[in-house]
């Protein structure tokens, strides 16, 4: 039985506990939050074994095999390092760390101690994302990706989040180097990182404060971001983050030399984009039928998954946790290669370094 602990009892910890409790062969042996009341409420709602008001006590008394770190990002590095030093495998919520240096340090420590690490990029393990990965691995693209487009939007009007963040000058999101972007964009960038082969792609970022935020007297939080990513004149990618565009999409497209794939995270649909063309006017009539057929196929697949009771909103998280635990038990490869974690952190560093300058567009390899 794998013993699991959770550090940080906020909203995302609820999702972790719900998914862990769906898995066989593991149990949550303890939770910790620096606010004891938060740890206690979590303990009461999820019937975990114990709650703690200090991290050392959690690790020494509950003796977990694996720790999930679900605290604000600024504390990820210190907590993960502390857990690794005490022999625990660690699952860190996104963003993995504040910067690449911290990420590198954790990866080195985990490797040295023969422990496992992963990051909460659970969107990459949703049903549809796994289907896309399988198609890419089967050679559907016809070669390495030529170009990718990742859209990751965030509706600031949701849950009054904007008002809270904007008004609270002490909000922890404001203290991150990339502020709002830092807390959100890693999901969308990680999708690109998965298919890059170079460790140091060129990153060109352009970001600005939307007119919506400016009207609310906010000039520090960048909520519109466009990024071009390129590796050695081989594969390129566009990344878009927007708080204002509608619909507020979460989509990923990847194009190879012989075909492309279009993934819609919100609708859980995957569309195969064919390379060939039909003759003359048939090109106007046949492809819409093929696309309609694919959408119908997606619908039926989603209904089937729902009826099979495997369509939870966080089903990707369940899969990722399960794969991570399996890698621990079998001492196999981790579900997210460390290279991808570091590459995502590196691209984020490059983006925030460029946004920190006054110039809107700067070469990533020579940030001012």
């Amino acid at each position: 039985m794998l013993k699991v602990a959770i550090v940080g009892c906020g909203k995302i910890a609820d999702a972790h506990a719900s998914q862990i409790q769906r898995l066989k062969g593991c149990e949550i042996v303890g939770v910790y939050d620096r606010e004891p009341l938060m740890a206690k409420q979590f303990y009461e709602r999820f019937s975990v074994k114990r709650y703690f008001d200090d991290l050392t006590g959690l690790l020494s008394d509950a003796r977990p095999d694996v720790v999930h770190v679900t605290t604000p990002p600024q504390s990820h590095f210190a907590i993960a390092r502390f857990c690794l030093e005490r022999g625990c495998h660690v699952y860190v919520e996104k963003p993995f760390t504040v910067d690449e240096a911290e990420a590198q340090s954790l990866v080195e420590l985990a490797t040295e101690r023969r422990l496992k690490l992963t990051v909460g990029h659970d969107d990459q393990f949703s049903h549809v994302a796994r289907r896309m990965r399988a198609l890419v691995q089967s050679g559907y693209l016809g070669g390495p990706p030529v170009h990718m487009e990742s859209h990751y939007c965030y509706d600031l009007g949701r849950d009054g989040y904007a008002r809270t963040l904007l008004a609270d000058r002490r909000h922890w999101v404001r203290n991150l180097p990339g502020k709002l972007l830092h807390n959100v964009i890693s999901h969308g960038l990680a999708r690109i990182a998965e298919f890059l082969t170079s460790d140091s792609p060129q990153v060109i970022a352009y970001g600005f404060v939307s007119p919506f935020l400016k009207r609310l007297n906010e000039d520090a939080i960048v909520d519109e971001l466009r990024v071009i990513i390129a590796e050695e004149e081989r594969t390129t990618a566009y990344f878009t983050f927007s708080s204002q565009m509608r619909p507020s999409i979460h989509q990923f497209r990847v194009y190879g030399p012989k075909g492309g794939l279009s993934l819609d995270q919100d609708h859980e649909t995957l569309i195969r984009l064919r390379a060939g063309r039909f003759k003359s006017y048939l090109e106007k009539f046949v492809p819409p039928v093929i696309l309609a057929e694919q959408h119908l196929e997606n619908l039926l697949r989603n209904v089937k998954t729902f009826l099979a009771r495997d369509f939870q909103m966080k089903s990707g998280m369940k899969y990722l946790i399960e794969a991570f635990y399996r890698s621990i038990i079998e001492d196999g490869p981790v579900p997210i290669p460390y290279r991808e974690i570091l590459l995502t952190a590196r691209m984020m560093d490059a983006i925030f370094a460029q946004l920190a300058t006054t110039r809107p567009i700067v070469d990533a390899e020579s940030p001012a």
Partner: protein
Amino acid sequence: MDNKDFIVGPDDPILVTGASGFIGPRVVEALLHRGFRNLRCFVRPSSRPSRIEALNAYGRDGARIDLVEGDLLCPEDCTRASKDVMVVFHLAAGTGEASFPDAFMNSVVTTRNLLDACLQHRCLSRFVNISSFAVYTNIRAPRWRLLDESCPIEGRPELRGDAYCFAKVKQEQILTDYGKRLGIPYVIVRPGSVYGPGHDGIPGRVGINTFGVFLHLGGFNTIPFTYVNNCAEAIVLAGLKKGVDGEAFNVVDDDLPSSRRFLRLYKENVRRFTSIYVPHAVSYALCYLWEKYSSRSQGQLPPVFNRRRWHSQWKKTRYSNEKVKARLGWTPQVPTAEGLRRYFQSCVDMGRHA
């Protein structure tokens, strides 16, 4: 009521948290109306500027209104806000819309911080905690039972699927614990469904719009309305009246309308829309099925509809305001008919709809 019946004098400092919310400004107004002129209003930095301006305006008549901006999650802010304060009206709370942890943090952790701060200053005469009817369980009660202050509190609030209920039950628990262990003098006020200008929407006890069409679930149930000014008056009396420490008071108005009548009036006065009446037996069965499926599918559907919630919100229940009238001398100043008229007019003026 004579002010000699009160535990504090007109110049003693009084703190109102959530002062820029829905009920808060009316509490401030009611305190001023009773001659209290040393008020401290705790507001979040995210409070709407128009509401801050409205609070400031109260100070122009010679009363002292100190606006304290801060976050109740910050102990230093709580210490600053409660310095020398003799009565705390604690209205600030999480709405429960975001998540369980969010509701808990903004209702329970904040309350604990405020109580700790009051203990430091050692001058508190009363802590008035604003709770809710959501804390009551109704699960073993017969239909048409009379809900009053003696009714049991939800024992397993985490099973209601309602973050607000969970947070409010835990908030009451921590308050009573501080009362017993540390001698904090407190009163709990549990308003029913507070309505009035500035608060749009139709109460969940009437029905829900979750599925794109309004499902009328209340039927002939009585809706435990209390008009916002009436509620504020009861809160003020609960904070001032001598001899009620450790008590809880339910606040509902007289002449309560049925759900069906309220919905009809709303449609006549605010806007017309399609609603589907769901008989109680059907709504109960649907809640039961939802609860079972949610459990069986390991949360594929969130457990927001369940039998506990049905019993609490949609079961036929009667409501009593005898205790608040008898012990606090409260009477609803705004009759329900007038309250509804003002509310509907406000909905029309604001151009908002349920």
